[in-house]
């Protein structure tokens, strides 16, 4: 461990404890537009004590990321700049520091980690090179010494096989490992302040847990002050001593974490907290008893990996293995699991986008046996809503045409009838028929997802597959879209296959749940069975990993393991061991 190494730079002055690590006073950041300067952040003041964790929480557009870039002196020039106020790091005034001196501070006294560990590391340089480069940017040490320091930094973030990692490239590491590398790089020079901008948002929930634990441990060890920028109130509750809630570039509320969560003063904070999906908040509902609309039996999806001289199949990705379940008419069936578990592949197989083995029956018709006309007819009955609405909407089409397109494809109605139907659908999803002539980019993220939902509804489907449909949305928007889905489901009696990685959301919306791990279902049952009485260790691990939006919540001590999910790639002929599900009572199926 690196705890014995002397602290550099920071904290040697006698009154260091009294002096805040960071002081922000009346900060104003503006963007230059054609209509003059427009403030992105205004009147923001706060202090950050040494060793403290301050969370800046807010939804997109609240100015939280701009604030962090302003502190780093990395606002995108020349359009965005600080137009007022002061930022002081210890005694150093940062606001009008020349670039050369600011550069000496960046990475040395203030460090930053970013949301996307996938894109923040240079793909063509080894981990060791990048770590050594960060060290040598500030300290004149030999290459060998920088490498030794890099190794020490990797050890301190508890990365397995640190020597080997030094010579590996970013793509050879998983997302969680990459974020550990980013943390190692940020903390290698013992900065006084670490800014963590959504550090776990791109990670799976179990990996998020490990990274948060690591950050907390390192902070305790090094006494670093942390500014945690996040939209996730669960993460805020777990990590923060103090919280600033921001909205539209202004501070809405500031207070101790316990106070913010128990007695929020601002209406916005209350609304934000109310929108956060909480585990255990799902209402107990009677199970839906109806005949199934979809029935999957022994579904398998495998992707061949070809290679070699003759392009022969050398290995297979076993994306989905022996999956069987029913979706009943009018119910919400949730598939939950971490990235790569095969949940989205099931969705694609069900709409015929990937070839499958086994049997998929939709409304009594078997998918594989249909001719082209039959498949087209079947597609009217199943519609899909994807995660990223901007990617799912053709940017060159008006939304009226986008929503009418399924009707055109299936030859339904006259142009006038279609127009009337589109207007009707827009009203139904909370938009206005007057917006028909607009283009997707003129709408917000939540509105775009409503457009996608309207398009999915156009054919009056019996089943809608929502593949991470609310994952990219802000919590308040997410709550409204979930309400919309629930209302539509009731109104039209549509069944919903709800695919998500978010346990709390799933717990809130689903009637029945299947938990997937490495292509197989490991536990399945009603919402109450799976969440109230989780039996499989993986289900428990997933549930326990969810950050709880309550700072007083005591987490049961769990072993801290940097477990990596094994690969679903197997050589030809081999395959994963088949999981057998056993009924532990009242249809609650658990892998033995």
């Amino acid at each position: 461990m690196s705890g014995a190494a002397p602290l550099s730079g920071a904290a040697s002055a006698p009154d260091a404890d009294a002096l805040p690590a960071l002081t922000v006073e009346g900060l104003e950041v503006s963007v230059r537009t054609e209509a003059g300067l427009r403030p992105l952040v205004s009147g923001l003041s706060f202090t950050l004590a040494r060793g403290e964790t301050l969370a800046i929480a807010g939804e997109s557009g609240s100015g939280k990321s701009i604030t962090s870039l302003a502190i780093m002196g990395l606002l995108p020039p020349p359009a965005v700049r600080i137009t007022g106020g002061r930022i002081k790091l210890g005694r150093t005034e940062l606001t009008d520091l020349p670039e050369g001196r600011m550069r000496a501070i960046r990475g040395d006294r203030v460090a930053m980690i970013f949301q996307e560990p996938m894109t923040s590391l240079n793909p063509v340089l080894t981990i060791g090179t990048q770590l050594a480069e960060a060290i040598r940017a500030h300290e004149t040490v030999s290459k060998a010494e920088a490498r030794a320091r890099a190794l020490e930094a990797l050890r301190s973030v508890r990365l397995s096989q640190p020597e080997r990692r030094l010579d590996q490239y970013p793509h050879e590491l998983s997302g969680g490992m990459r974020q550990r590398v980013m943390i190692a790089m940020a903390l290698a020079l013992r900065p006084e302040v670490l800014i963590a901008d959504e550090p776990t948002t791109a990670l799976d929930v179990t990996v998020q847990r490990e990274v948060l634990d690591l950050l907390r441990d390192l902070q305790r060890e090094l006494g670093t002050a942390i500014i945690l920028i996040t939209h996730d109130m669960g993460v805020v509750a777990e990590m923060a001593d103090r919280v600033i809630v921001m909205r539209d570039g202004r501070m809405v509320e500031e207070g101790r974490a316990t106070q913010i969560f128990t007695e929020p003063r601002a209406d916005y904070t209350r609304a934000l907290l109310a929108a956060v999906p909480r585990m255990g908040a799902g209402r107990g509902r009677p199970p839906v008893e109806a005949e199934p609309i979809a029935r999957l039996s022994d579904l398998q999806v495998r992707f061949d990996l070809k290679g070699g001289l003759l392009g022969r199949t050398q290995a297979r990705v076993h994306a989905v293995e022996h999956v069987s379940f029913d979706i009943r008419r009018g119910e919400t069936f949730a598939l939950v699991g971490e990235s790569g578990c095969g949940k989205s592949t099931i969705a694609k197989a069900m709409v015929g986008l990937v070839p499958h083995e086994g049997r998929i029956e939709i409304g009594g018709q078997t998918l594989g046996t249909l001719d082209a006309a039959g498949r087209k007819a079947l597609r009217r009955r199943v519609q899909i809503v994807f995660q990223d609405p901007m990617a799912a909407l053709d940017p060159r089409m008006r939304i009226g045409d986008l929503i009418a397109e399924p009707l055109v494809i299936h030859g339904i109605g006259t142009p006038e009838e279609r127009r009337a139907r589109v207007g009707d659908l827009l009203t139904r999803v909370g938009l206005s028929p007057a917006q028909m002539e607009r283009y997707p980019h003129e709408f917000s993220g939540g509105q775009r997802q409503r457009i996608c939902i309207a398009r999915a509804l156009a054919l009056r489907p019996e089943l809608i597959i929502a593949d991470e449909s609310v994952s990219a949305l802000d919590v308040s928007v997410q709550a409204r879209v979930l309400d919309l889905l629930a209302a539509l489901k009731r109104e039209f009696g549509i069944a919903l296959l709800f695919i998500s990685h978010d346990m709390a959301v799933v717990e809130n919306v689903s009637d029945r749940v299947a938990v997937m791990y490495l292509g197989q279902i490991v536990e399945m049952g009603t919402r109450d069975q799976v969440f109230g009485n989780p039996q499989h260790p993986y289900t428990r691990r997933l549930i326990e990993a969810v950050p709880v939006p309550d700072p007083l919540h005591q987490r049961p001590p769990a072993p801290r393991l940097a477990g990596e999910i094994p690969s679903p790639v197997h050589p030809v002929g081999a395959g994963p061991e088949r999981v057998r599900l056993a009924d532990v009572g009242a249809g609650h199926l658990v892998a033995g």
Partner: protein
Amino acid sequence: MHRYRFVLFRPLQFLPVLFGISVITFVLVRLIPGDPARILLGTRATPTALARIRAQYGLDEPMWAQYLYFLKNLASGEMGRSTLYKIDVLPLIATRIEPTLALVTMGVLLSLAIAVPFAAISARRQGRAADQAVRVVSTLGIGFPPFWLGLVLILLFSVTLGWLPVSGYGETLGEKISHLILPGLTVALSLSAVLTRSLRAGMIAGIHSDVATAARARGLSENAVFWRHVVPNALVPTVNLLAVNIGWLIGGTVGVESVFALPGMGQLLVRGIFSRDYMVVQGVAMTFAVATVLVNFLADIVTVALDPRVKL
């Protein structure tokens, strides 16, 4: 070194490619109207003499038989005999390959020497005067035909200024290099225009990328961010663009060699076509094809070396 294993096996995949190329060039050459025997002997040749020549070069046999002879010769390292030069095609090509190879190499090196700094200046001053200037010049470079550029360069540097030779190749290395500068520049001006645009786009994307922001946050200077984290990533797609263009360039040397009177493959090809010298045309076309295949192979190796994520 698992990633480089394709270097051993990829050449085996060239065999079917080369077979296809040989069939196509063989057939295409024989579709050119005109009788090689008559062109060789002139319009007043006697039927007996024509028949003798045809028999001598196997031109009286059916086309499939001629192709089989061609393959058989190829297997023993021969490409037939030139009807025009009266020597074997392979040694003939061997004497002409050097100027062409040198021209292409010179062109590629000069174009990189132009494109990398210009793209860097342009990308780092995006939207400012220097960027605009580079973009205008590179658009013009794409627009002007190389033979015309070549003539302008000769007028300027050889005729007016007298710095460089007008045409020809020379004997010593120094002479050869000085003779290659203008033709190389002619090639490079068009090629660098394409490369500059691709590099500039890649560099601008890189400057605004997360990788660059993260590197700046570590306290790296803007120069270090640019040369270590932006340029290597921008080079990767450019390598493939360069390979495709070198393929074009090899065929395009025909024009530049004519303008600068370089005794290369392009000139040989032109003369071969005019005198219906089937064997020469075939041989040169095969050589160009093999060169193009090799350049792409080389580009694959460079790509793998530059980008650790690529597996072939």
